[in-house]
């Protein structure tokens, strides 16, 4: 049973437009949700997180939205830049351990 799912394996957007990456989860015990970015040959890098008691968290160009009733979160990147091209993982945390989705490869075209 995969507790964290990213149903879109890839996403392509034009530079300057909005990128929206989606993630669904099944375990209502998760207390934090996090997004990571990963470049080839590097470890994942933390981007932004949101507590389960909030519905929005913003940090610069990155905003994460949480819909607890739908068990859904999304990451918005505005405006998208070519340097944002990477694999994005969502993760959900419970008791200090994180469960990761399969990742979405974002390509931002100049």
């Amino acid at each position: 049973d995969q507790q964290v799912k990213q149903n879109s394996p890839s996403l392509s957007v034009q530079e300057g437009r909005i990128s929206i990456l989606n993630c669904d989860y099944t375990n209502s015990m998760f207390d934090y949700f996090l997004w990571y970015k990963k470049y080839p040959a590097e470890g994942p890098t933390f981007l932004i997180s949101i507590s389960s008691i909030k519905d929005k968290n913003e940090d610069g160009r990155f905003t994460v939205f949480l819909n607890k009733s739908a068990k859904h979160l999304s990451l918005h990147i505005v405006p998208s830049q070519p340097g944002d091209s990477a694999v994005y993982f969502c993760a959900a945390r419970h008791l200090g351990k994180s469960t990761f989705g399969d990742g979405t490869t974002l390509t931002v075209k100049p």
Partner: protein
Amino acid sequence: SAVISQKPSRDICQRGTSLTIQCQVDSQVTMMFWYRQQPGQSLTLIATANQGSEATYESGFVIDKFPISRPNLTFSTLTVSNMSPEDSSIYLCSVEDLRDWGPYGYTFGSGTRLTVV
């Protein structure tokens, strides 16, 4: 946030041999986490390494196959034993960055890309 040095960055190993991966953190941390990322898949937690106690393994992972050492609060090793081609993966260590208001995410090492032939 913590800085993690992980080595080796990559290795090609013969079937049946073992490889030990090392992670050094620049600060003291209570828990270190070991993940595996198989080709085209997500990160899967192998085990949680606590200093001074046995590592806690996730379902599907056993100590005989993935022995872990945690001799102090800044260092850990993961050994992949009796390797087979199915063990070809990227192995990552990580620590959690905790702030006053909550978790700030994991910091990951750069990963060890293991190929078993």
